[in-house]
């Protein structure tokens, strides 16, 4: 069996508030290549905290996290940032597209901080947009797109760096059912192409499409 993309062992995350918050408690999780995992749970249960840890945006207070076999908890800030840029693609509920840039420019932003040459960047961005079915919208400003199209543009941006892991926090939270359907179809396609996907959601419609579901309640993770 090949090495897992994600391997969490005994992850804890405490916030020093008053009273202290234990957002994650002894979480262990293995996610293999081309897995499609849905994380469900009630509000405030620790889903976003888990995703931030997985995305190297936040450091766990305890435990070990290996991404593609690399132990990340001992890495410095710079190394974590590089790893994040290279291995992880993010999809947010709020899309986070820059209003004043065209769709293609928004997608190209994903390579600005990487090591890839500037040459061919536009072509790669167009290829990513084709992949999500938005090739014909490349020169549009984001505010002319429908919600579903915006999320697909954001997914194209996440795909540009050819990440090994796609992390999505409520990707369909701002979408109607028709657009949700389109995005979920895209996830299926991407998974079939070998991408590893972790989706946070509280919508049954979304979690049902995933091959595997885990639930968090009060920071404790369990398979469903």
């Amino acid at each position, binding site marked *: 069996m090949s090495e897992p993309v994600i391997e969490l062992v005994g992850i804890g995350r405490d916030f020093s508030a008053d009273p202290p918050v234990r957002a994650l408690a002894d979480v262990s999780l293995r996610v293999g290549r081309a897995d499609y995992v849905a994380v469900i749970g009630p509000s405030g249960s620790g889903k976003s905290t888990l995703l931030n840890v997985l995305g190297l*945006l936040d450091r766990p207070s305890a435990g070990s996290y290996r991404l593609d076999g690399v132990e990340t908890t001992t890495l410095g800030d710079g190394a974590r940032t590089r790893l994040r*840029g290279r291995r992880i693609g993010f999809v947010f509920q709020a899309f986070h597209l*820059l209003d004043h840039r065209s769709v293609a420019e928004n997608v190209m932003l994903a390579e600005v*901080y990487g090591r890839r040459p500037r040459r061919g960047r536009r072509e790669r961005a167009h290829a990513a947009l084709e992949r999500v079915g938005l090739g014909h919208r490349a020169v549009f400003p984001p505010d002319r797109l429908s919600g579903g199209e915006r999320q697909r543009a954001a997914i194209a941006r996440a795909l540009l760096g050819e990440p090994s892991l796609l992390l999505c926090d409520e990707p369909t939270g701002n979408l109607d059912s028709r657009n949700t359907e389109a995005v979920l179809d895209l996830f299926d396609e991407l998974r079939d192409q070998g991408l590893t996907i972790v989706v946070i959601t509280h919508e049954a419609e979304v979690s049902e499409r995933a091959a595997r579901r885990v639930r968090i309640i009060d920071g404790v993770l369990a398979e469903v």
Partner: protein
Amino acid sequence: MHVRDLAGEAFAGMLACPVRTALTTLGTVLGITTLVVTLGVAATAGNQIVGRFDELTATSVTVDVPEHDPPLVAWDAVEQVTRLRGVTSAVALAESEAAANVAVRANRLVDPTRAAGRTLTVLAATSGLPETVRGRMVQGRFFDQGHVDRGERVVVLGEQAARMLGVTRIDRAPAVFIGEQPYTVIGVLGEPRRERALAAAVMVPSSLGPRFGLRHVTRVLVATGLGAAELIARQAPAALSPGNEHLLLVGSPATPARARDAVAGDVEALFLVLGLVSLVVGAVGIANVTLVTVMERTAEIGLRRALGAARRHIAAQFLLESTLVGLTGGVIGAALGVVAIVAVSAVQRWTPVLDVRLALAAPGAGAAVGLLAGLYPALRAARMEPVDALR
């Protein structure tokens, strides 16, 4: 991160809200314009003042010759001065108290009604007088070496003296009577700018001087080229009277630098302070707006961090943005300032003095203001935790 990507991101950030950026540059524009105009107009005006001094004083050297036996300066010694490098012309004069009040009458034929006698100054001179006092022959000509050598009884009247004597035309060779002797008027000297008293004087060739008690040279006037006056002031005495130079009294020209300093001083300082204050206000403006921008773009910062941007990338972008805003203000301010200098000069009929270094330094100063103003906001942006920024 590629430099061109950094520049691209900074430009895009700056142009995302053009109106706000334009308003943000305003303070810097104002400050830089004020500084450029102040320094530029001061330089231009200073140059004009120096120019005026050059013409009137800084190109004039006066050597007073005290009475001495034997006389210190011979009439032909003025030739030696004229030969000095930097001297454009020179004239030797003989004046005396007695000759300052001489009765002069016009020839009755000129105008019988105004034939009354006048008391005028008579002085003896060599031929280089009109050029040296920057005068102009309004009629006829000045006497030359020929008149001197032949001892001809000719005079040149100052313009005012001619009017007082009623001499209006000289084409019929009018005569004036000094004492009982008639002298032919061969010219009228106008606008002797350096020696205004000459306008009311009667000038006779040095060969006629002794008739009026004007035997020896009492004063030598020298006109020099621009910038040569100080040197000539040192050289002239030796040329005029070798061996006795220390006995001659040289009137030293006003130094241009001193004249300039005196005028430039106060006003300039005031406007410089004003300009610097505007620059500080401009910097605070940029800092303020950049800080607001950073807060507004929190999500964007989070996104960039998620896409792999390090803290220094975020800091560099905001720093470059504010620097570009300052640079824009500096460029606009420098342009406006130059236009203003040219306009002021045109109105004042001055020659504008545009220091290239000033025109180049101004945008640089604007950029520096932007850079300084951006330091704190950029630091704030870089310090943001990606998790907080994306919340």
